[in-house]
């Protein structure tokens, strides 16, 4: 189960491919160290690890928001770099195919009201206002947030903000969804709702990559787990059942405590 180098695959078979990727904040604080990862279409991948192990950084890298200091990252068979994202056509295609739900909903919900927030993505990606507006109404109905449509973000609770953040990403209908700690700081009902939604989106064929240390819901929302050590490296990959059965591994990467009970 130890991490192995990513196998050579055909570009069309691969959604994301990271090869020996490293990244440091301010060239000083390492966040990723020699990470190799392949994500295939329709897969549901969970990135597991303790706080500060590099999960969020990897998600930002997969979304083309930060770029590796060494190694290579390709998405849908094309290299993703600062240069390639300067190309308007490539950038638009990439952004419309990949959606990112940030951990901090306050950063993601930046528009003056919920309706504008959900419309932001579709409008940026070139949909006509009428079409964007119709799409906004449908997403609002799907996520049952009609009562929030005209509210300002500061009038929303944490769970409501998370729903709006997810709606704002789903409105662009991306093929790939990246979730950073999706269930963190949510009440049990919101957690259950979100888990259910991720499960349904996965069943609908979306590729899902999420960073989490919530082990309870893993078997429901992941087909494959990628485990990070506190040294910012991938130390294991496998099916959720396999990973959850390896208590020594989970202890060594600080995902559980000896006093913890596993699901």
């Amino acid at each position: 189960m130890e991490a192995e180098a990513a196998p050579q695959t055909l570009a069309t078979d691969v959604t994301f491919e990271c090869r020996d990727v490293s990244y440091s904040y301010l060239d000083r604080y390492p966040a990723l160290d020699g990470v190799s990862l392949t994500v295939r279409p329709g897969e549901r991948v969970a990135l597991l690890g303790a706080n500060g192990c590099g999960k969020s950084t990897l998600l930002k890298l997969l979304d083309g928001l930060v770029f590796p200091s060494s190694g290579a990252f390709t998405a849908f068979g094309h290299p993703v770099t600062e240069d390639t994202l300067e190309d308007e056509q490539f950038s638009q295609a990439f952004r419309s195919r990949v959606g990112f739900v940030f951990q901090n909903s306050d950063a993601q919900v930046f528009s003056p009201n919920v309706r504008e927030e959900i419309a932001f993505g579709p409008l940026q990606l070139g949909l006509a206002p009428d079409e964007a507006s119709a799409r906004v109404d449908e997403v609002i109905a799907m996520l049952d947030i009609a009562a929030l449509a005209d509210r300002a973000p500061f009038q929303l609770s944490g769970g409501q903000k998370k729903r709006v953040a997810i709606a704002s990403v789903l409105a662009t209908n991306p093929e790939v969804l990246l979730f950073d700690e999706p269930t963190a700081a949510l009440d049990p009902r919101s957690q259950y709702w979100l888990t259910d939604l991720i499960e349904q989106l996965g069943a609908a064929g979306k590729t899902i990559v999420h960073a989490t240390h919530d082990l309870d819901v893993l078997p429901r929302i992941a087909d494959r787990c990628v485990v990070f050590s506190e040294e910012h490296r991938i130390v294991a990959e496998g099916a959720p059942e396999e990973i959850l059965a390896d208590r020594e591994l989970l202890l060594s990467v600080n995902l559980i405590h000896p006093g913890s009970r596993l699901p």
Partner: protein
Amino acid sequence: MSEQAAVSERVQVPQWLLQPELGMCPCGCVGKRKKGSYLRKTLNGGAGLLRQVMFSDDTARQDGLLQRIDPRVKFLSVIVLLVAAGLARNIATLVAVYAVTLALAAASRLPVGFFVKRVWLFVPIFTGIMVLPATLSVVTHGDVVLTLWHWHGRAEGFTSQGLTSAGLIVSRVAVSISLVVLLTLTTPWVRLLAALRSVGVPRIFILIIGMAYRYIFLLLNTVTDMYQARTSRTIGAAKHDGGARAFLGASGGALFGKANQLSEEVHQAMTARGYRGDAKTLQSFRLRGLDIAAALCCAALAAAILIGDHVLGS
């Protein structure tokens, strides 16, 4: 790390933490009371701002006269009326316009008492004090109507010319503020921004105002949290000394850092959804008969102000 080692790695609690600290006097006597600090007052002011915004949101959603008019028409009408009021040179004209704003407030279901208070709370502070010297004969020469002192045998005090000029400025400011308050209390913030955009204000400017407005509340919450965290650890009376000032400085610095980090995340969130420097927004404005009638009424009012003022002036 082995499981056993991890279990045995327990926190060593110092002895003093296991003993109760001497707290309040057990007899329950009451100590001296002090007034709240300037910090608390400032934060309460912040909470007041939030209440005002929520109140404005409520009034903007009521089914009144001005709420039914297209925000673009309202915005342009206010500009036209501001210019007309600015050109008026008679207090009587401005008093008449002020009466119209009161009537519009009532027709828009705004609490008239609140509307009047909101305008007149600031006019004396910002304008009254400023024009006060101009009412005196030492600044504006003319007929002294109220003598305050004598200088080399000549009476000095308020002059009728000075009082008229001051009255004109104060009434002009009051009318201008009333018009702007009418606009903001009857138009939801988002639609006001969209109206600004549609009348040619640059998109990036609108985006920055919108985001500043959105995040000011988040930062306000952060400051309140920081203050409450400090209050919960302040034993005894809060002092208004160097420590309080140091806290204020440190909070400002920490807030600046947080705002910087947040702005970076917000930019990433925007980029992730396709933002490339040109933000687009939903706009759904359509001019109706009422809007055209409102625009015509505004034009007629502006003409009446200018003609009436000219007649009164002559």
